[in-house]
């Protein structure tokens, strides 16, 4: 007959919290790897429109960003309220887009150059006239793959 030893000690040892830092550090590293610090200083308002039929941009090494929107409050005295183009950290004109895209594409490894996608991050209030001008410039430098950045809309209710 096997007898179990009754281990009914009156005082349980306290729960060890020694592994708690490890768990938290694990969480910390997880967040450090999946998130990115927003490095671009946006000078234009950028409220993206929403859409349902979207595709995620998984490969971030071949993306070129163009931001378009009305200037932030502090730049309005200089640039007005009409939507402006922002490339990297500065305002730009439509004619600057071609050289900018070429320069960005030149900086990429050769095998990625043909796969470049230009992401248009456009404020929803911008007019199509400007967007079409931008698209025309992109066609001129043969950057044909574009992506209209949007926010994913929650499932349609109606």
């Amino acid at each position, binding site marked *: 007959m096997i007898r179990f030893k009754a281990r009914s000690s009156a005082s349980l040892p306290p729960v060890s919290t020694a592994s*708690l830092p490890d768990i938290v550090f694990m969480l910390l590293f997880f967040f450090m790897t999946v998130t990115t610090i927003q490095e671009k200083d946006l000078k234009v308002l950028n409220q993206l429109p929403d*859409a*349902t039929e979207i*595709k995620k941009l998984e490969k971030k090494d071949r993306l070129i960003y163009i931001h378009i929107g009305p200037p932030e409050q502090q730049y309005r005295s200089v640039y007005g309220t009409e939507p402006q183009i922002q490339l990297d950290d500065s305002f730009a004109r439509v004619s600057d887009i071609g050289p900018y895209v070429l320069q960005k594409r030149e900086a990429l490894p050769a095998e990625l150059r043909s796969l470049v996608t230009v992401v248009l991050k456009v404020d929803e209030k911008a007019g199509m006239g400007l967007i079409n001008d931008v698209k025309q410039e992109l066609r001129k430098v043969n950057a044909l793959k574009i992506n209209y*950045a949007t926010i994913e809309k929650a499932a349609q209710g109606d």
Partner: protein
Amino acid sequence: MRNRANTEVNAGSMADIAFLLLIFFLVTTTIETDAGIDRLLPRIDDTSTIVVRQRNILTVNINNSGALLVEEELLPLEELKDVVIAFLDNGGDGSCDYCKGNREETSSDNPNIAIVSLRSDRQTAYADYIAVQNEITAGYNTLRNREAQRLFGSDYTALEQDYLNPQTGPLQKEQLKAQILQIQELFPLNLSEAETASE
């Protein structure tokens, strides 16, 4: 027992420090949510002209207040998707054996030559334009999903997602690519955006 020296370093505050760091990173960083509608612009030197019969073109005009004029008639945005589906799926000349449309005389012959022509005004808001692009894409996706279900038993959008998933193996990727291309051939995205009409 009481006077035995405690040699263990107290690591209790370590968790607090780590939490502090964690919260700092949570606040200062953002999860990158880059997503959007993919489009391919036409080449600039593409000057070839093709004669397209009027019935094979679905004209969609967006005015500066966001109202839609589809085939010369006002149409609410919610109905655009169904109109696009009916237009593409029409199969008017009977050469499309997978089309399930009404084969109307006034609508497209074959999805391969059916063109959606999108025109916008310079003053059209970008939000309205994207909403229309979204509905047109939804129309295409519905039809592509139907064909993908029939041929491969899976949604077209699901195939695309699997293809873009970094965890998919190279062998499976090849297979998915072939399937995606096959579906795209059945319903190719023929979207024409003529130069913006000025008032």
